């Protein structure tokens, strides 16, 4: 059965040998592939063919992976359901009436349906972890700076990271190992990831591990999700982990801060789509401003326009201090809270999504409701931390994801803890 996981299916061979030889990997369609169109799920780039590979794509090819296509996504990564793609929605392989989550929904669906051994997504506010949770696969959002963003079409560059999705923690960690590490074409990458080894951390050993549970990320979640979450924590305790409650008061403002910052960065990043160097060829008459505005009216979908306009508003004279400056304060506050909580715990655990997968169409007419679903994932991006979503069983037949958050460059710790969740499921 087709889930419309791919926008473009094309086999791109990698090197003959390497750690990923014989493996197939699907790549989100906002990650540049030389000679293969990269649409970002948008009419604006429907025919865009990059003349170069993203660093992560180069690394996958050198590691022997065979790329099998470019996966569907919310337009420019803006969405939580993979329904805002100009190429139509992807459906959830677990339940075809439901969304796969977003914005890397095509990548998660391709893995869940067995159409690829692993996939790359990008995570700006949860876009790898949300679809991993909704489709019952593993997704890793790396520490900011661990993975190069060169060749990733930017949406909100201070927040986003490319991350792997795979059926198991170990397989996701193997892909992370290949793509992680500094890149002189992305000055925000970090030396700390230089000699990363992640796959061997998936040993299931949580003896003595201290797990903090932020109360604010449990409150308000669907009871069925919370029940699965607590049962999984009980399993981890039975394996020798210790849990305690922690409080992160700042996360109550994280969704607002996240959307103000992401929309502001989007309004700036997406200014490049003016129809001159790439973009649809319209018949618009008039001067540069008029023709620019006509191209963008035609090329962008509703959610993208909504975010560009709100971002422009938040940065405009008179509102900058009220929205953007305050959002930056909230971001620093969130970071401080996490530092404190992680000084008393090795990892923090929460449900990845506070809800079960939405039915198709359910959230499209109410953007604010959709934004609220990101409450548990966005604080991690604001604090630049690593997090993993690992399947924690099902409720009413639908996947539930458990999120583990670690300190900066603590990928090995969250991978170890997630592998213990896996062995108890």
């Amino acid at each position, binding site marked *: 059965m087709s889930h419309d996981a791919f926008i473009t299916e094309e086999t791109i061979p990698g090197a003959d040998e390497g750690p990923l030889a014989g493996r197939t990997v699907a790549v989100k369609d906002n990650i540049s592939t030389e000679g293969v169109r990269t649409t970002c799920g948008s009419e604006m780039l429907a025919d865009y063919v990059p003349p170069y590979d993203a660093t992560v794509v180069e690394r996958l090819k050198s590691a022997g992976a065979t790329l099998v296509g470019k996966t569907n996504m919310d337009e420019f990564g803006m969405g939580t359901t993979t329904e805002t793609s100009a190429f139509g929605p992807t459906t959830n392989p677990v339940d075809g009436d439901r969304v796969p989550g977003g914005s890397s929904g095509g990548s998660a669906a391709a893995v869940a349906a067995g159409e690829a051994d692993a996939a790359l997504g990008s995570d700006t506010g949860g876009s790898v972890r949300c679809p991993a949770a909704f489709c019952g696969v593993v997704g890793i959002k790396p520490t900011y700076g661990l993975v190069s963003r060169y060749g990733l079409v930017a949406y909100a560059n201070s927040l986003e990271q490319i991350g792997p999705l795979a059926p198991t923690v170990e397989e996701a960690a193997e892909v992370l190992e290949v793509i992680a590490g500094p890149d002189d074409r992305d000055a925000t990458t970090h030396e700390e990831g230089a000699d990363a080894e992640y796959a061997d951390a998936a040993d299931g050993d949580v003896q003595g591990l201290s797990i903090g549970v932020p109360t604010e990320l449990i409150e308000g979640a669907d009871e069925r999700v919370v029940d699965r979450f607590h049962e999984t924590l009980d399993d981890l305790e039975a394996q020798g982990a210790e849990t305690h409650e922690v409080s992160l008061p700042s996360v109550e403002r994280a969704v607002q801060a996240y959307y103000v910052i992401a929309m502001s960065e989007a309004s700036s990043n997406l200014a490049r789509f003016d129809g001159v160097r790439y973009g649809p060829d319209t018949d618009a008459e*008039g001067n540069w401003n008029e023709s620019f505005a006509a191209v963008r009216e035609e090329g962008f979908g509703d959610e993208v326009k909504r975010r560009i306009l709100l971002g422009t508003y938040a940065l405009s004279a008179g509102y900058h201090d*009220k929205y953007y400056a305050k959002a930056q304060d909230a971001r620093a506050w969130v970071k401080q809270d996490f530092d404190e909580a992680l000084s008393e715990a090795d990892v923090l655990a929460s449900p990845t999504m506070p809800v079960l997968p939405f039915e198709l169409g359910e959230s499209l007419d109410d953007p604010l409701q959709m934004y609220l679903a990101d409450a548990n994932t966005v604080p991690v991006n604001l604090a630049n931390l690593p997090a993993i979503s690992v399947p924690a069983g099902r409720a009413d037949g639908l996947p539930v994801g458990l999120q583990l958050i670690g300190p900066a460059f603590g990928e090995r710790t969250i991978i170890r803890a997630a592998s213990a969740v896996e062995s108890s499921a």
Partner: protein
Amino acid sequence: MSETPVDADEVRHVADLARIDLDDEEVDQFAGQFADILSYFDALDDVPEVDPEADLVNVMRADEVRDGLTQEEALKNAPATEDGYFEGPSVS
């Protein structure tokens, strides 16, 4: 309600700044949604001032000539070109 209600004129003004044409239906739809979303953002008013820890460093590299895109590659995706240049609309 937000202290800064958004009416249709304001949506048109912001759309003009952002260089996006909107039709009347979109203007009305966004005006309604923006009121809700901005009033939700008002919760940022009670965020305390926090001194961010400065963990940012400038990253510099040697200013050396490297291979870049060829002219042909750079122009490949343009809807219109002329004599090896991008062709754009008139600026005035």
